[in-house]
């Protein structure tokens, strides 16, 4: 008898559960739980530091990742030089004060650990690529040649390395040049044309802020004044994402941009003081940070890079240094 009652109850429960399934499914679809729907959780870890504590890099510090070793490179034009941190966020090396390296604007690292500096002469009118060993000692200077006539003003501010190709990005003039390891230009992009700028849109203030390259050679950039981020394929096809506003997923002042190995795209927002995450379909997923002085909060986040181990590095203003977050999938 007792067994029968239990069986009836169990049957009743099964029926109710079965009946509730569509409703549950509907509820999950409408109100997704954060971790389940997003598939990505980001948590604050620490700030880049040396033995004396966090290092207060300036708001303009540029970040680069050594994908093979997981080290992060910080180029801070206000403080000068390049500082290297290991995977635990501790400073391990610094270089860049040598006169032969010129004024280092940015760096990129290849799989072997060689370092490419984007350097300028002392008038900062002429640039060259410095090929350095892992100690930051200049091995050779690579002079870029073969740039087309439309690149007479070309003054790159970012350098990236991907599969034997060096990417030089002039964020102000919206130009990108790809050069081989001998410095010969092999392809160029005029981003204004690719993004179909109308004459009215070609203005000084409609220039790129953040720039990134993924392993497939796709280019990512932000244009703060248009409240947009873009993905451009190697064959020059552009997709755009993001919109202006104050709510989640909206851009206040879109700044740095990065992409990780899973295709997640990270866009820092200087005004909203957070980092927005989009998936590879360019849909908004989540965001983290927010204005404040506590751990994990951000003040004017600028550059952002994604490490191979799920770490996300964010430079910021207010002497807050570079904050490190961990992304769990």
């Amino acid at each position, binding site marked *: 008898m007792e067994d029968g009652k239990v069986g009836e109850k169990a049957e009743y429960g099964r029926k109710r559960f079965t009946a509730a399934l569509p409703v549950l499914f509907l509820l999950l679809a409408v109100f997704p739980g954060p971790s389940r729907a997003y598939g990505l959780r980001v948590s604050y870890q620490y700030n880049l530091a040396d033995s004396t504590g966090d290092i207060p890099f300036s708001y303009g510090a540029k970040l680069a990742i050594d994908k093979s070793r997981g080290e992060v490179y910080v180029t801070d034009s206000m403080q000068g030089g390049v500082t290297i941190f290991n995977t635990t966020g501790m400073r391990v090396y610094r270089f860049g004060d040598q006169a032969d390296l010129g004024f280092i604007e940015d760096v990129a690292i290849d799989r072997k650990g060689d370092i490419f500096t984007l350097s300028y002469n*002392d008038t900062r009118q002429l640039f060259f690529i410095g090929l350095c060993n892992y100690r930051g000692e200049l091995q050779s200077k690579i002079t870029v040649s073969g740039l087309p006539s439309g690149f007479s003003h070309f003054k790159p501010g970012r350098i990236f390395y991907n599969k034997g190709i060096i990417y030089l990005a002039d964020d102000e003039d919206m130009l990108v040049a790809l050069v081989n390891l001998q410095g010969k230009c092999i392809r160029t992009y005029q981003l204004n044309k690719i993004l179909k700028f109308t004459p009215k849109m070609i203005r000084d203030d409609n220039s790129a*802020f953040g720039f990134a390259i993924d392993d497939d050679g796709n280019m990512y950039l932000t244009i703060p004044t248009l409240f947009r981020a873009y993905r451009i394929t190697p064959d020059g096809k552009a997709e755009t994402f993001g919109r202006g506003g104050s709510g989640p997923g*909206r851009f206040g002042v879109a700044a740095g941009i990065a992409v990780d190995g899973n295709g997640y795209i990270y866009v820092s927002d200087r005004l909203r003081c957070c980092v927005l995450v989009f998936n590879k379909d360019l849909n908004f997923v989540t965001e983290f940070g927010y*204005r404040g002085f*506590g751990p994990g*909060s951000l003040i*004017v986040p600028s550059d952002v890079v994604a490490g191979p181990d799920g770490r996300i590095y964010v430079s910021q203003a207010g002497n807050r240094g570079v904050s490190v977050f961990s992304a769990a999938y």
Partner: protein
Amino acid sequence: MKAVKVALILMAAALVVFGLSGAAFAFHDGGVAYCEGCHTMHNSMGGVSNSVGGWGSPGVTHNQYLLKGTDPSSTCLNCHSHKGAKYNIFSTDGSSYTPGGDFYWITQTYTYSPWTGNTATSQAQNHGHDIVAADFSLSTDTILTAAPGNGTQPVYYASNLACNSCHNPHGRVNGGTRNGQKPVGQSGSYGYTPVTGTINGNYRLLADTYYQPGDPSVYDPAPSGVAGYPQAFTYIANAPVAVAPATFREVEGLGTAGISHTDYGNGIAEWCANCHQGFLNNDATGTTGTHRHPAGDSATLGPTIAGFYNEYVSTGNITGTSANAFLPLVPFERGAGATLSSTSTAGPDGTNAAVMCLTCHRAHASAFDEGTRWDTQAEFISASSALIATAKPWVANAPYYGWDIVANMGSYQRQLCNKCHIQD
């Protein structure tokens, strides 16, 4: 009738799509931008309180203007701090060659060895207007705690100095529409002809008569121990007249696209006198007993000084002509009503051209003491303190906006006062 309706609908749609889309191309467009760009209505962004771990923390004050940045300047610098010129005025390396100068220099203290052989120091906060921007670690000037030379104007304290001390972030002209002005239709910085039914904004959104930095109803309380602190500082002079190039290249005046500079009309010194009224001297003859260098609309150069300016090319070279005499490092006012052009190479005339504050100073900051355009502490300006400072070798020619002084003017170029006075 139906066709007319369809056409009207299409026209309305086109107006919405193309007419309003222009707003997306520039944030200010000469006037007030959209409110949400700078303000948060409920002290939150993205559903997260701005006070969490931040403004509500001990020692951290709340933003009383509902701004998204910690303070007014921090809000402005969210967009205006980056490398290069264009619309950036605070770089990390002195590369923002905008006419006002680069606030980078108010972060830079450097030591150097002058001709005396001793070590000298050029203090960061002596390099310009020390705006307060907490998010960017820009703090109050501790040397000059108030605007010097206020004269008959109320004292303006350094602790309140911010972008909105000089620029009206809402872009109102002469009191705005509430004061009977027509709506602002476009920027007033580039010499555009006003659109019918509208007026242009002020040059660089500069404040003018009636402007009170900050809302006087919530004006900052008096710092403790300071008597007579003004409760409402009001502008008494209108914004000046000037024309800027729509495109700034890396070297002012020597851009690859040709000469490119701000061309000044009139009203600069009078406008600076909103805070520094005691420094305004319109008497070019210097007979008023103020013993200050003339500056102002009526401080005309006259034929002699204008002639010097036009002759002077560099130390030892006085073969210049009036048609090509303009030197961006020593600009002047062409006078009220003069035709202004950011590509003009012409020197001053002997009738209307006048000396102004910006003839010698940068409005924001420069590499040199007192925010001057050239190093007033060096006999030969190629040996300027900022150029020879060993602590920051990478600044190179940034103090002179990328000008290679030696290449363009020689190793023995002396002070640029000589552009008008030829004493070298």
